[in-house]
């Protein structure tokens, strides 16, 4: 299990390679990479604020929860904070399991919880404005499928 909260840019491929290479018995590795999108072509930077201390705990608890729900060989979570440029990777999760279904489901689960339950807040900065990104109802709704 490997959890990172960092300001520095990262290369998703370098992490996927390292994660894949360290697996012993896994047959399936799923990764998700989130990128800053610049829909209007005006985004200059994205600022990500977080809650130091709580962030690390929340991500570790989330990874533990995923491991208790699915039979996983390994979990990787990386989330950036600070200033990001448009198009840059924001965050990444990877899961490893014997079979593909638990690897897919656990990665999907991690993302749904990261969106709405990990203490990060995004602010989009264009030439003219700085706007806090609103939480989406669809993200909240996505959590309900995992309730048990």
């Amino acid at each position, binding site marked *: 299990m490997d959890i990172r909260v960092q300001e520095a840019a990262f290369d998703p491929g370098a992490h996927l390679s390292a994660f894949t290479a360290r697996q012993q018995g896994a047959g399936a590795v799923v990764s998700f990479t*989130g990128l800053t999108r610049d829909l209007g072509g005006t985004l200059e930077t994205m600022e990500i*604020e977080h*809650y130091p*201390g*709580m962030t690390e*705990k*929340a991500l570790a608890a989330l990874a533990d929860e995923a491991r208790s729900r699915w039979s996983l060989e390994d979990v990787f979570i990386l*989330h950036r904070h600070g200033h990001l440029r448009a198009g840059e990777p*924001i*965050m990444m999760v990877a899961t490893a399991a014997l079979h593909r279904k638990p690897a897919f489901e656990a990665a999907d689960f991690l*993302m749904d919880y*990261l*969106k*709405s*339950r*990990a*203490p*990060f*807040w*995004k*602010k989009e900065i264009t030439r003219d404005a700085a706007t*806090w*990104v*609103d*939480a989406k109802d669809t993200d*909240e709704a996505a959590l309900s499928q995992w309730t048990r």
Partner: protein
Amino acid sequence: MKLRLLYFAWVRERIGTGQEVLETEAETPAALLEELRARGGAYAAAFEDVTALRVALDQELTSFDAPLAGVSEVAFFPPMTGG
């Protein structure tokens, strides 16, 4: 009871500070919010709509009616937008 209060994102911006220390008798985050709102001004504005807020006690997400007894750090912030 002495509490460390933390504010994040637009809550922090509206209030104008990210943290402060407060001596309070409030028994829940809801009561604490009421007390802060009573200061008026930026506090009243930031905490106007409780449905737009989330609260963590000692770095654990919880509800506004959770007990504050034994807690040392309270954080108020908007719904999270990670991932």
